[in-house]
């Protein structure tokens, strides 16, 4: 009941104050558009680099909202109110991350599919890549949220968030990109890679909110 109310509010706030999915999607697109300029025009190289570059762009985009996810709450007194709301802070972190995934980060798989085609991946590989990003997206956001909670209210939180989150997100990067590479190479490892991406997301979904809740609790003290 109260978790649902919080989800609805966070969803609403993502559009009312944060511009919805526009920020991370624009960042994601810019990264996808710029990388080929650096990689060069060779189509084979571009296609080979595609899964990695596209997944990496999604990873960077997932960090875009992390600073504000809890930084705003810590700054404007909302954190105290959530702590005293009867909802546990871990639950609040879980709900906020889910709302962020669905309200803000949803274009990532779409961009991955379009980017895959533009980079010269086969349709099948592009769709597998999109599936990989879709399965990895919640995990990417959960880990970004954990880093955001640790850095909430600190100066240069953005730098800290990238340093904390990026290594933890590495497995998701490996599995999502690995699935698309397997599909491209015709090995039958695409399925297992997708399963591993999902598993990593689920593990992050359990551990990251607990860690975020503890970090927020410590922030109040």
């Amino acid at each position, binding site marked *: *009941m*109260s978790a649902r*109310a*919080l989800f*609805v*509010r966070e969803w*609403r*706030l993502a559009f*009312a*104050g*944060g511009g919805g999915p526009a920020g991370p999607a624009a960042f994601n697109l810019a990264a996808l558009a710029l990388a080929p300029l650096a990689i060069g025009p060779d189509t084979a190289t571009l296609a080979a680099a595609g899964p990695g570059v596209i997944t990496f762009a999604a990873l960077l985009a997932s960090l875009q909202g992390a600073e504000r996810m809890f930084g*705003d709450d810590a*700054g*404007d*007194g*909302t954190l*105290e*109110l959530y*702590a*005293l*709301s*009867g*909802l546990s802070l871990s639950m609040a972190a879980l709900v906020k991350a889910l709302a962020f995934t669905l309200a803000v980060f949803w274009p990532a798989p779409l961009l991955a599919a379009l980017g895959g085609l533009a980079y010269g991946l086969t349709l099948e590989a592009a769709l597998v890549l999109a599936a990989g990003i879709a399965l990895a997206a919640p995990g990417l956001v959960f880990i970004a949220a954990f880093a955001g909670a640790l850095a909430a209210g600190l100066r240069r939180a953005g730098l800290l968030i990238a340093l904390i989150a990026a290594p933890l997100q590495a497995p998701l990067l490996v599995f999502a990109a690995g699935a698309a590479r397997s599909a491209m190479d015709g090995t039958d490892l695409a399925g297992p890679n997708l399963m591993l991406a999902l598993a990593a997301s689920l593990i992050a979904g359990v551990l990251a909110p607990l860690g975020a809740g503890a970090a927020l609790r410590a922030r*109040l*003290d």
Partner: protein
Amino acid sequence: MDQTSRPPALPDARLEARALRLERGGKMLVRDLSLSLTPGQALVLTGPNGAGKTTLLRALAGLLRPAGGEVVLTPGPAGWLGHSEGLKPGERVSEMLAFWAALSGAGPDAIEAASRAMALGHLARRPCGALSAGQKRRAGLARLALSGRAVWLMDEPAAPLDAAGRERLARLVAGHRARGGIVAAATHADLGWPDVERLDLGLEAAA
């Protein structure tokens, strides 16, 4: 507000601190503080800047762990009005109140009563970011009023309020106390509330 629309009386509220010791940044702020408030009582905390008023309120709310002693606050959790009101600039006042009402299980009549008590009617559709400091305070007070919490902890509740706002605040607090609620407020200004307990943390520190 007529008597029939009033929320029911609050259950046995109690706010107690026993031998409370609080430190902040290695400095002892409160030493062996004991207090006990029963339904209908109000405590006004005074003292110079940095005396530990906010720290004491946070410890009473359970937001920070005291260095020693214990706090009893029933029924918890406390109703909280902090230094900033926890408003989101992009959210309308009515949406904000509806959210907190949903979170505490309050109905539409509680929202209605709280926004009437704080004169928010004409501001309901305004985004919270477009409110003045005093209006924000009133929005925060309305959120507190509809929370249904028995023990209210307020940090400088009157600071940005004009005379009419202070009058409304005093009425809100009087109504809460009349229903058996407990209020503890830190303040610099004279709140003009009748019949309150007082605690001066400056004197406490000097003693």
